[in-house]
């Protein structure tokens, strides 16, 4: 039987105050199984009464070895593994992988594919934020918001299921475009979401935004300023809540985000409430982007027409010998990008998600490293939580919106 491998306090003594060793302050182990650590995060807290003096995050309880596993699979097969990393933004994991592969192989995804990608990505962001608003409100004890948010999330998952047949792990975005074109019902389904959502977001706000208890629990809690945030590489809504309007979608656009008109919401408070406001506003902006993308959804192919990298359509395999050969080669041997390494980033709901991909001229990635936004967010937990109450700590964990699959990979 495996044993739980514990740190002793002596090993962590450089992280705690000397009082912890003498028992003057209480060391509390929170997690890995705890209702509000959003998965299997473990926090070792040093408490004086209920005041958090120190907080040492311990991660790795969901370490899956995805990076190692990807090295052993061809480029097409490795993509499937990426879905399960940031499991709240699966489309984004696929996208950053596809962008990196496209950069390596100089593939171009067609305009229609880009527009559909944008729609799906913004819907993904919306569902991620929905789960965040639900769980973070649940952490503060407001349970109804969670169930309302989950109800709305189902609408988005229905769209994912419509296009790909899977609710979460879609692998719908492929290098060079999409797996296939979307069905005809897609536009109507998305249109419905665009119509319904602003009202639903209003209803969450009605429950939370002006609620005195909610404001009391969130204002001035877990503060961080822009300088610290940048030094600790914090991105996404947490950075934007400090006042810096940094968004990869605007700064380094991908998938044609430059064509869409949207704002980057910012707040200057840098606290839990600021992050809440930024995310809620981001949900509205996402709806706006989806609406624009839907209105000018172009027609055309959804995959690059390069048979060395992109599998031919199913219909061609039966009639064209070349298509059959390409298909066979692609799914047995895989494609071979040139030697070199690239770095691609996208804006995930949590911040900047990057992929460092190195190719050694073989059909398998030589090294893939995901730069995930949740790692820096967790890393600043000691800074955010210093001097706060245990109850605030819960609110802070909720507000930075970590996904443990994202940190541990």
């Amino acid at each position, binding site marked *: 039987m495996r044993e739980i491998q514990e740190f002793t306090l002596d090993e962590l003594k450089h992280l705690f105050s000397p009082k912890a060793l003498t028992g003057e302050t209480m060391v509390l182990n929170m997690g890995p199984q705890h209702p509000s650590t959003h998965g299997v995060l473990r926090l070792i807290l040093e408490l004086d009464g209920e005041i958090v003096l120190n907080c040492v995050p311990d991660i790795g309880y969901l370490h899956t070895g995805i990076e190692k596993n990807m090295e052993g699979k061809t480029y097409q097969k490795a993509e499937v593994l990426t879905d399960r990393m940031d499991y709240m933004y699966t489309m984004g994991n696929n996208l950053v992988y596809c962008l990196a592969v496209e950069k390596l192989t100089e593939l171009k995804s067609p305009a229609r594919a880009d527009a559909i990608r944008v729609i799906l990505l913004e819907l993904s962001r919306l569902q991620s934020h929905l789960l965040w608003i639900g769980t973070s409100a649940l952490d503060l004890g407001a349970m109804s918001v969670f169930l309302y948010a989950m109800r709305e999330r189902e609408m988005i998952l229905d769209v994912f299921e419509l296009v790909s047949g899977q609710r979460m792990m879609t692998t719908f975005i492929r290098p060079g475009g999409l797996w296939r074109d979307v069905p005809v019902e897609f536009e109507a389904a998305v249109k419905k979401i665009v119509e319904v959502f602003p009202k639903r977001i209003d209803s969450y706000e009605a429950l939370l935004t002006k609620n005195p208890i909610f404001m009391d629990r969130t204002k001035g809690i877990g503060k961080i300023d822009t300088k610290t945030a940048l030094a600790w590489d914090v991105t996404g809504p947490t950075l934007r809540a400090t006042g810096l309007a940094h968004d990869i979608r605007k700064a380094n656009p991908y998938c044609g985000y430059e064509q869409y008109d949207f704002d980057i919401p910012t707040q200057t408070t840098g606290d839990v409430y600021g992050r809440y406001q930024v995310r809620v506003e981001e949900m509205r902006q996402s709806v706006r982007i989806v609406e624009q993308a839907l209105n000018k959804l172009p027609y055309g192919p959804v995959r690059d027409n390069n048979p060395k990298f992109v599998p031919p359509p199913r219909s061609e395999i039966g009639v064209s010998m070349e298509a059959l050969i390409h298909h066979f080669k692609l799914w047995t041997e895989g494609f071979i990008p040139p030697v070199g390494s690239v770095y691609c980033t996208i804006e995930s709901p949590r911040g*900047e998600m990057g992929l460092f991909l190195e190719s050694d001229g073989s059909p398998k990635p030589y090294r893939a490293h995901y730069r995930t936004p949740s790692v820096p967010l967790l890393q600043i937990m000691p800074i955010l939580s210093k001097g706060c109450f245990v109850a605030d700590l819960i609110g802070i964990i909720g507000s930075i919106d970590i996904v443990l699959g994202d940190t541990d990979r």
Partner: protein
Amino acid sequence: MNELLNPAVFAIQARFNGQVSEFRGDVTILVPAEKIIAAATALRDEFDFDMLSAETAVDYCPQTNPRFHMVYIFYSTKTHLYLTFRAPVNGDDPKIATMETVYPNANWREREIWDLMGIRFEGHSDLRRLLLPPNWVGHPLRKDYPLGYEEVQYTFNFDDIDLRKPKGVR
């Protein structure tokens, strides 16, 4: 190469003996390992690269010198540009100075590299394993570390493999 990158690239190239290469628009500078901290400091202070976007390592296994490449990717929120540094690290005793003093967020990234790649960071404040249990043996992301593949059981070899399987409930 983006023109805005020019001053930084030329300065680093000249002052720290860097070799510049470009692939698909990504600029990479190979900096000697002992100068990496000075180069990163210059990059941060003089050229506004205020974020260490990613830090990782690549293992080119059979060769020993340099077996590892440390990869640092910097980002500037002013110019929205990325710049990559690479530092070769010898495989016999892999160690390099910590980036923590320049970019504090390197703390966990270096712990992760130590955990998975086994590169030691000198001067690091808290070099423990990050992802794996504290008493794990080996560094899984090294190319000479097996994936830990477990055989797939079919009907014909089910019993053989079953015997070798660890059983938790004993």
